[in-house]
């Protein structure tokens, strides 16, 4: 069985709960780093027909496909979603908007061209919105599409985010099943640069099969590789999402989410080396068994510090962190490399 088939089999066993197409899959307010300061952000996850890659199988860790709509939304419904989402931002004075779908915002099959223009146009029209970030797979980052977006947005900043995950094609293929190559990303980055659009790369800490150490070093190396091709780097810590292949193996004791100490070390090493880059991480589900975690005592503190660093880009907030479990983590870094195929579990 291929990795894609394995992922697809699991997908097919999941039920998608029916819900109104008038509302986005999710929307929330948060704060982010922007130009050396903390800025408000409104994140919107549009409910679309879903990621084309995910529908055919998709990535081993991705559970967002289940956020897609059971019946593809009409263009009107998509715009209604934006409207409903913007209510959440009513009280904000000045903010960025991050747009996700369960796939690619720039994919016409998910968001029709006209709808995309309308959505971006509405955001451009809102004075409080100073920047829009949209996520997409690299194949949709073309001259034509970018230009159309820039047209719609006017002088509102525009950034494209791509889930690169890693610069290693080996890992992206055999562990993540992402379906594109590093050169696809760098090509997209070139197109973006040529159009004056900034790039954000999402990386994945600890995909399947990698040891804690391999995972850590892979991100460090990826940031070196990607430094010229992005302005912002956001490191996702792999968590165990429902209905994913990662979950399948995790339930069988064959996967452990990354340690929070690993992201701390990554941030310290990479930021020092690349002070020009904005390097952030938002540990989702930190401290839980399914999320990145240290021990019960320190997971919350360390996770808070990572958040704070992400907003401030100030490495000092990471300096004071310590816990008894850090010795264990160091041992795991040493030994998890030498288990020949089974993770070291807690």
């Amino acid at each position: 069985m291929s990795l894609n088939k394995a992922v697809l089999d699991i997908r097919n066993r999941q039920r998608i709960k029916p819900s109104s197409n008038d509302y986005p899959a999710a929307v929330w307010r948060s704060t982010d780093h922007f130009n050396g300061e903390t800025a408000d952000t409104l994140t919107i996850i549009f409910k679309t027909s879903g990621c084309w890659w995910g529908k055919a199988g998709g990535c081993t860790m991705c559970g967002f496909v289940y956020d897609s709509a059971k019946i593809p939304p009409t263009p009107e419904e998509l715009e209604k979603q934006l409207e409903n989402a913007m209510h959440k931002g009513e009280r904000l004075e000045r903010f960025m908007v991050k747009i996700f779908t369960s796939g690619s915002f720039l994919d016409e099959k998910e968001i029709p061209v006209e709808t995309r223009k309308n959505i971006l146009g509405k955001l451009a029209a809102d004075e409080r919105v100073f920047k829009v970030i949209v996520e997409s797979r690299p194949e949709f980052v073309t001259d034509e599409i970018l230009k159309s977006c820039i047209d719609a947005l006017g002088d509102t900043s525009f950034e494209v985010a791509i889930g690169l995950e890693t610069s290693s094609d080996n890992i992206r293929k055999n562990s993540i099943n992402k379906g594109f190559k590093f050169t696809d990303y760098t090509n997209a980055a070139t197109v973006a640069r040529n159009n004056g659009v900034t790039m954000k790369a999402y990386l994945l800490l600890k995909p399947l099969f990698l040891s804690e150490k391999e995972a850590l070093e892979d991100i460090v190396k990826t940031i070196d590789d990607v430094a010229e091709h992005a302005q912002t780097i956001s490191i996702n810590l792999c968590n165990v999402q429902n209905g994913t292949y990662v979950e399948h193996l995790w339930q069988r004791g064959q996967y452990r989410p990354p340690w929070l100490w690993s992201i701390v070390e990554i941030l310290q090493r990479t930021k020092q080396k690349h002070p020009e880059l904005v390097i952030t991480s938002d540990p989702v589900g930190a401290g839980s068994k399914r999320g990145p975690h240290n021990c019960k005592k320190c997971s919350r503190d360390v996770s808070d510090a990572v958040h704070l660093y992400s907003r401030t880009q100030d490495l000092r907030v990471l300096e004071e962190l310590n816990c008894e479990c850090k010795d264990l983590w160091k041992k795991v870094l040493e030994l998890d490399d030498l288990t020949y195929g089974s993770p070291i579990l807690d």
Partner: protein
Amino acid sequence: MTSYFEVEQRDGAARIGKILLSTPIRTPHIIDTVSLKDPAGPFADAGSMWDLSAEEALENIRKIRELSGDDTILILPHQDLTPDVPGDVAETIAKKIDMEATGPIGRIYRHGQDVKKADLYIMEGAGSFQGNARKFMQRIIEIREKIAPDTALYVPNLCTPANAAMLIYLGIDIVDNTRATVAGYNDIYLTTSGSYFVDSMAELPCRCDACAPITLEELREMPKADRAEILTRHNCNMLEAEVVLARERIRAGNLREYVEGQCRVEPWLAGLLRLFDTQYGYMEEHAPLARSNQLLATTSESMTRPEVVRFARRIHERYTPPETDILVLLPCSAKKPYSISNSHSKFIRSLGKNRRYVHEVIITSPLGVVPRELELTYPASHYDTVVTGYWDAEEIKWVSSCLSEYLSKNKYSHIIAHVEEAYREICEIVSKELGIEIIYTSSGNVTSYESLDNLKNTVSGIVAEGEFGQNKPRSDLMRAIADYQFGPGAGELLVPDRSKIKAPFPKHQVFIDKKQIATLIPQYGIIALTIDGTRLLAASDDYEGYTVTIDDFLPRGSLLAPGVIDADERIRTGDEVLVKGSKAIGVGRAMMNGKEMVASTRGIAVDLRHIKKADKDKDKD
């Protein structure tokens, strides 16, 4: 070719071996996991292809060989997957990672992929089998069937003091201290009887050199790093002691008995034992023909151990009773062989001169039925069991099935059962099942005067009724053992009617035409052949088997595995085997099983007792 590993001793699937580096390493062995990263260590890992490029990997190989020459087992670069990974991914990666190196090498064993030669195999994802007895069993048997018997099997990230003996029992040669170390850093205190959180303990139940100098309170108050180090040292001490104990048990041949107790620590270990026992092929092929120690039958799993099941199966498949029409079923005795016990002396005295018309078969748990002629033969004379008077339903079911099989195959005109309680229950079950009549001669107590008298009178009454065949206890015994050991037909050949049995019980010797053919070895109740006996079997057209075919040379003392061309697959460690080649004929004791003789490139196959130049004329006489 496995030039770097040799198996020296076996106890079931477990074995003691040697990794042939300049300082040989005794197996079962515990690898200090971190030492795998030392390119000059005895085991050196060339790295993971998840983060190495092909060039970097080759460079690693080169570096290791440069540092230590062929004095390290080089673990080829690998890209590890967990066990439940899809086959395609495994295949893709396997193709990509097609590395080789000179000298001794270790390889990942990946399910579903072709096996290439190596000195050591690492079970991929072994740690994930924790708790999953069925999958682990399947993986072990699969690997053992695919790799050469004289290669070492390494199971990483799984071993603890509690499961070490079981892993070794199942045939694993190498483990590591990953779990022992991680537990130490997790404040977990490991013992052979389970693990404890340091916080939930009140005392340290250990006198090892890590624990002896400190109290639990002192340990708790230490800085984490120091505490972790001491706990790790303790955990590794326990692991090491347990592995040494397992080695001692292999040498003594009684690892099974230990594992039958030890497996109670975790349900999945007990499950492993039970599941492996259902794999009679794998288990029996590794079980020696005989051991000099007692077989302790202290638990329900004792009934399914391969030596016990084999005995029952051979009674069914290989044994033919003497031509005696009257069967007397008797209960077993604690003292072995039964015939020297108090109760059996009385039975025998009661049978008196009519004994020659009677065939005696003993009913016993866990062996089932033991014909008198085989009472000396391992394990009939070697088991010790828990005596409480109560037989559980499984024992009754098992022994009934043995008796039922026996009586279905072997017919008697009269069946007398001089038994009580569970023995009687069993006879009644079988009597009802097969619709055959059984005469019961005991009333309340098998050794009471009344019962013994009844036995005596019943037998003489029957004998008086007609003409009955007589048995010849000494030749019957030798013939039964020959059949048991060499298969049906061997008895006829080695102990024909014209043969003579010399020397008193139990040191019988068989002579034909004044030539000694065979000797009974009382300690195991098995037969040793003389060179004349060997020629007799070898030259017969009616018998084939237990033969090791060798190349055209004349071995001396020991026959090494590389000299073996072919060997009977039925041969077990400890078997008496014929050795035949164009230049030699001989006999000796098998030191490995038949399959291993053929597939091994190292080790002693047969310990020869007699070896002669093949002489075609002589072979014909």
